[in-house]
């Protein structure tokens, strides 16, 4: 892909990111941080690609370590975020619903 195309995607993603994240309620800043953390675990895709294209032992070892680290980041991140968000159930009393 051309540099200009990638640059365009980057700039647009910056705006989408700022737009979406600035609407996140302060109550959820911790899950936001761990959720965003999990999202950058997608580096796993990159780690798999470089591991799959390695021909010799040294780069293969490095990239397999990267696969392990990225998996911890991604899977652990989503699991822990889910655990936190599960707790934000809010007031389940029917009276509270009517009040709104």
């Amino acid at each position, binding site marked *: 892909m051309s540099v200009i195309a990638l640059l365009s995607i980057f700039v647009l993603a910056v705006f989408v990111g700022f737009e979406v994240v600035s609407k996140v309620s302060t109550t959820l800043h911790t899950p936001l941080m761990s959720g965003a953390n999990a999202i950058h675990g*997608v580096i796993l895709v990159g780690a798999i690609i470089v591991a799959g294209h390695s021909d010799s032992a040294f780069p293969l070892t490095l990239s397999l370590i990267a696969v392990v680290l990225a998996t911890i980041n991604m899977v652990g991140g989503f699991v822990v975020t889910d655990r936190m968000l599960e707790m934000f159930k809010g007031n389940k009393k029917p009276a509270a619903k009517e009040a709104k």
Partner: protein
Amino acid sequence: MNNNLYSLIGLIAAVCFILALKGLSSPKGARRGNIIGAIGATIATVVVFFYNDPAEGGLKNLPLILIAIVVGVIVGVPAARKVQMTAMPQLVALFNGVGGGAAALVAIVEYLHLGDQASGGEVGATVFTVLVGCISFTGSILTFLKLQELMTTRPVVFPGGRAVIALVLLAVLGAAGWVGVDKGSTSLLVLTVLSLAFGILFVLPVGGADVPIVISLLNAFTGLTVAATGYVLDSTLLLVAGTLVGASGTILTRLMASAMGRPILGILFGAFTATPQAALSAADARPVKSGSPDDVAILLAYARRVVIVPGFGLAVAQAQHTVRELADLLTAKGVEVAYGIHPVAGRMPGHMNVLLAEANVPYEQLKEMEEVNPTFSQTDVALVVGANDVVNPAAKTTPGCPIYGMPILDVDQATNVIFLKRSMRPGFAGIENELLYDPRTTLLFGDAKDSLTKVVSALKVF
């Protein structure tokens, strides 16, 4: 699988990530959003196995890669399941660090793979990823050690520290330039080692109270390295995902800094300029009004409106459930109860909300600082549990003290203030709190959980 289909699925995964962040705009849709994000990540991971790069062919070493993924799952999932909510900042720091490390490793391998064929842009992106990824890796590990209290939480400052850091930074930039010119592996090794060292030096002087800002900054760093890797590997998905994280980390860092009333650079480099605080021990002799659990219960029972201000001390004592019991009891007596949450209460942004949600406090009762501050003048009792710095009026009245300029919860406006504290020891920032000596203040010493339990049983007698 052909290129178009592969890119299209990558786009779907990127949209899932955007929806995951969008879901967090309200607690209702948040969990579903996170699951959508996880599905996106899973799709992206599965699809890459079926992709044939036109230049490279299909993936080799599949069994080893699958084993590595299984190892990662075995390490990551139990850690995520078992972690205490109080230890969340450490875990996030650790996950962030390994992500940064992974990005740096991917960049190194791809750089060695490309060799002389690397374009100027690719070398530039590799240098950036290795540099920032390594800083994020060692910086996050050190943050983890500080938060886990495996090392001192105080800023570590050594003589000439500033000069050493400046020199290492110059050396890092020099090595980066060297890699750009020479495109060799020795220069890259030097860059890696120097960047790892800089990550350590960069976090060492940061004090415990400022660590949350560092976590969120390093999170943004790791995001940007993933974006740069996306450029090198020609992957739109990595580019978009990394950029989203970079944006969210940047926003959070800015919000945190403004919640502490300090510029970001001031926090990162504050330790270099900080002068040791004058001894405040003379103040210890002054009288304070301490009360019994019964006194506290009476104050609370005859109040019309109570605002509970929780701090990290509450979480350390695991008193979240007891405080909710107290709040329920008061509500049943017709007292209006709200929780006033300072943005930096706890040890990462929004940490206190998670801790209270764990104790089934409905999130509707959690009030942000801007929302609760105007109501303190109509509040009969402000109950401060294990917090100190975030209610310290010195932030407004004493120019030159370390927290001066930090927005605080105005509990001094309430008719009565009750502090539940373990001792007269000052808070994380190490500053004396004048409010403790105010005649309207009642202190109840002891472990927050014990004290609250006693107050609850005293209340039940009424």
